[in-house]
């Protein structure tokens, strides 16, 4: 069936390095993608989103890249800080006859070493 998945379940980086978190999706009808950050014991928090008619979107220290040819999404975090340590989820929005809803991947644990 359709699914959203992540290539790497864990990622460890040094403070100041750039981080790249990857996500694969299989539903070509997905029209919108979101990256969420979830700190321990908290609910997911929106980071950045991108529509399917875009290839790249930049925020503050974060960039999302979308490659529709290979159905791949990535989140790049520049100058990673200890406060970036969290689980990161990608989610795709799928339009259905009953409406649209987000489907979440399993998440990648990012650990930033000081």
């Amino acid at each position, binding site marked *: 069936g359709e699914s959203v998945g992540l290539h790497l379940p864990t990622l460890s980086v040094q403070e100041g390095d750039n981080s790249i978190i990857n996500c694969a999706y299989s539903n070509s009808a997905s029209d919108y993608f979101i990256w969420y950050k979830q700190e321990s014991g908290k*609910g997911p928090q929106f980071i950045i989103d991108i529509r399917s008619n875009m290839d790249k979107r930049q925020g503050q220290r974060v960039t999302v890249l979308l490659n529709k040819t290979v159905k791949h999404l990535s989140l790049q975090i520049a100058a990673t800080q200890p406060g970036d340590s969290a689980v990161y989820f990608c989610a795709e929005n799928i339009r259905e006859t009953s*409406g649209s809803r987000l489907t979440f991947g399993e*998440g990648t644990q990012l650990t930033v070493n000081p």
Partner: protein
Amino acid sequence: NAGVTQTPKFRILKIGQSMTLQCTQDMNHNYMYWYRQDPGMGLKLIYYSVGAGITDKGEVPNGYNVSRSTTEDFPLRLELAAPSQTSVYFCASRRGSTYEQYFGPGTRLTVT
């Protein structure tokens, strides 16, 4: 705005007991969602609502029920708790004009 609030934060249930997880949002969002998150896993959609009086099943609805009598509230009911329902439950909401969902802090439920 308080955003999305959930109560209780933690709860331990015995097998067969019932309980209601409360969710309230003060952002006047039409869309509301209930997810469960098992350890080390992503979010799975239980139920959702596109407005007061309208609810629909998500990916994993068995063992749960919901109601949406007002725009603000979207309670999740567990009728006969089972160990398989041990999880963290998140409520979320969004405006109709965007897809971004705002999440509550979660309810950690243990069924023993």
